[in-house]
């Protein structure tokens, strides 16, 4: 098991440029590269796989510099976006492909292929042709094929995007189980934040060829380093205002909507700040409450019942807020309807403070 490191890895082609990237991915870690299309995540994956040559920097696997190594000499395998299974071979032969190239004995190939096929639950498909497989089965075959010769690192290129949405969540859970059993390092490329949050030990959020933040799902969700990361990883409500220290250690943000208490963590902030609030961290009150510090009055413009939660769109006098309320919370209160007057509130520590980004 080796640590995989990118050291100021660069790549430019056409108008795209991957800014010097430094990453250290721990052995056995499930790491995701998350970002919108064109952010450079796939480029990083192709550099790691050896399909592209970087224009600068290097890639280290343990103590070994693998930057210039050909794809077939790297102990890194890829699960391709559309799986790229060999149509002229059976499922068994697809999985056995890398072992055959190594010239292993028949008995050993049989043993190892059987083992990985039972782990990925495709044992019954051994004799099938590739065109006879469903999407979910193809994905397992691709995974088994990439895992069978025990790579140090497995690269997953949007492996769920070709699946039906209804299938995705289940397949993701199974994938996570398999990954934990195998113990290799996994690197997932995705534009789906839910996928990244569900699967990753840590993830990197990328945009325009730049890595914006690296951290655990929790850290990135709750403590995003900038407004893009905050909004990409999940929906947010934004209040723009001016930061002021009213008393030593006590900070407020004054905005057109009022003045709100905030908790300032160590980082230096300019005067103009954005206060970001996650929909599920906001609460709805029927009546004005004097004990609540942060209060906004508004009217329910729209509500969507989603079973486990209800999503509200609340219009205040000059802003629109998204609020998500767990069903449990909702049951305690009288049902709310469209056009009801409500008060919005949140805990001071749940507000995320960031420097104001340029207006959109």
């Amino acid at each position: 098991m080796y640590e995989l490191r990118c050291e100021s890895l660069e790549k430019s082609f056409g108008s795209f440029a991957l800014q010097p990237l430094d990453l250290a991915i721990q052995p056995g870690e499930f790491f995701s590269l998350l970002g919108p299309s064109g952010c450079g995540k796939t480029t990083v994956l192709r550099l790691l796989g050896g399909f592209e040559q970087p224009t600068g920097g290097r890639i280290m696997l343990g103590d070994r510099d693998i930057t210039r190594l050909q794809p077939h000499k790297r102990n890194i395998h890829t699960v391709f976006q559309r799986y790229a299974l060999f149509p002229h071979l059976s499922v068994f032969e697809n999985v056995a492909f890398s072992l055959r190239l190594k010239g292993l004995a028949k008995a050993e190939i049989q043993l190892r292929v059987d083992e990985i096929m039972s782990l990925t639950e495709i044992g019954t498909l051994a004799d099938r042709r590739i065109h006879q497989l469903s999407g979910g089965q193809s994905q397992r075959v691709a995974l088994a094929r990439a895992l069978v010769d025990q790579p140090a690192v497995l690269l997953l290129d949007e492996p769920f995007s070709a699946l039906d949405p209804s299938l995705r969540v289940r397949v993701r859970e199974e994938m996570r189980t398999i990954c934990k059993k195998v113990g290799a390092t996994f690197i997932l490329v995705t534009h789906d934040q839910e996928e990244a949050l569900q699967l990753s030990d840590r993830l990197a959020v990328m945009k325009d060829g730049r890595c914006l933040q690296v951290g655990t799902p929790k850290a990135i969700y709750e403590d995003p380093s900038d407004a893009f990361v905050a909004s990409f990883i999940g929906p947010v409500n934004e209040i723009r205002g001016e930061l002021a220290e009213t008393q030593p250690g006590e900070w407020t943000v004054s905005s057109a909507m009022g003045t709100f208490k905030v908790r300032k963590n160590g980082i230096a902030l300019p005067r103009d700040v954005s206060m970001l609030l996650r929909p599920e961290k906001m609460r709805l009150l029927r009546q004005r409450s004097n004990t609540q510090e942060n209060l906004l009055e508004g009217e329910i413009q729209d509500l969507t019942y989603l079973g486990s939660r209800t999503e509200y769109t609340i219009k205040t006098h000059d802003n629109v807020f998204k609020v998500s309320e767990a069903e449990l919370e909702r049951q305690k209160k009288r049902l709310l309807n469209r056009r009801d007057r409500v008060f919005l509130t949140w805990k001071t520590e749940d507000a995320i403070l960031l420097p104001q980004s340029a207006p959109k």
Partner: protein
Amino acid sequence: MKKLVLRLRDWPPSAWIFFAWLVSLSVLPFLIILAMSFAVRSESGLISWTFTLANYERAFHLVYLKVLAKTIFLSLGATITCLLVGFPVAYYLARATPEKRQMGLMLLFIPFWTNFILRIYGIVSIFGNHGLLNQTIMRLGLTDAPLEILYTRFGIYLGLVYNYLPFIVVPIFSALEKFDLSLREAAMDLGANRWQTFTRVLLPNVREGIAIGSLFVFIPMMGEYVIPDILGGAKEVFLGRVMVEQFFTMQDWPFGSALASVLSMGLMIAVWVRMRFEQRKAGPTSHGLR
């Protein structure tokens, strides 16, 4: 019978055209040739319709078997050469930009805008003893005597390759065009070097195109008459020439027909065997270990 008639009525017009073409220009002529091959040549060179197997007895005589072997040998050699030259050409075209691809395919077939006979004589003017090639190398002092290319077996081979090359490129090109490049990356990713990627992934996936292209050129080569006649000279015999000779010089239509039937049947059997083989492969596979 009634069922068949009903079904014939359900055929779309396109099927009728195909059917009419098949029967009138392919099946019927073949049956006529087949019938003639069992007939006897009359003294005056006409056909006398008495059943005999003598033509076939003669056709399998060593002299003709040698001609057949030579024809197969030359056609096979030319087909393999077409394959070796045509594959890289098809590969380049399949990977080129759409504009380059269109241009390339057009250039490939531009020679065919010229009459076939003229093109063959074009070869004569290049490779003949007083042709461009020999004149050039003699002027350069590379040889004293001209290279004997025309009127040899090599001349026929050269003509076959030149004339049939474009026809093998097209089926291979379309197979390569459909080939998913990510399969190549997948093979390399799993540890295959360039050669292994080529032999284990690329070739098996375009095998069908290669087989069709090879048949496309091999079959007409076997029956080729003009190329060996013009480029082969008097001493080089080729099955097509022998057949034409039987029909037009010797006036022995029944024997010519027997030779033609042997060739056609042989090719049909070969194609049929190949198709059966393909069908078996396309079925459920076993991976060789179980």
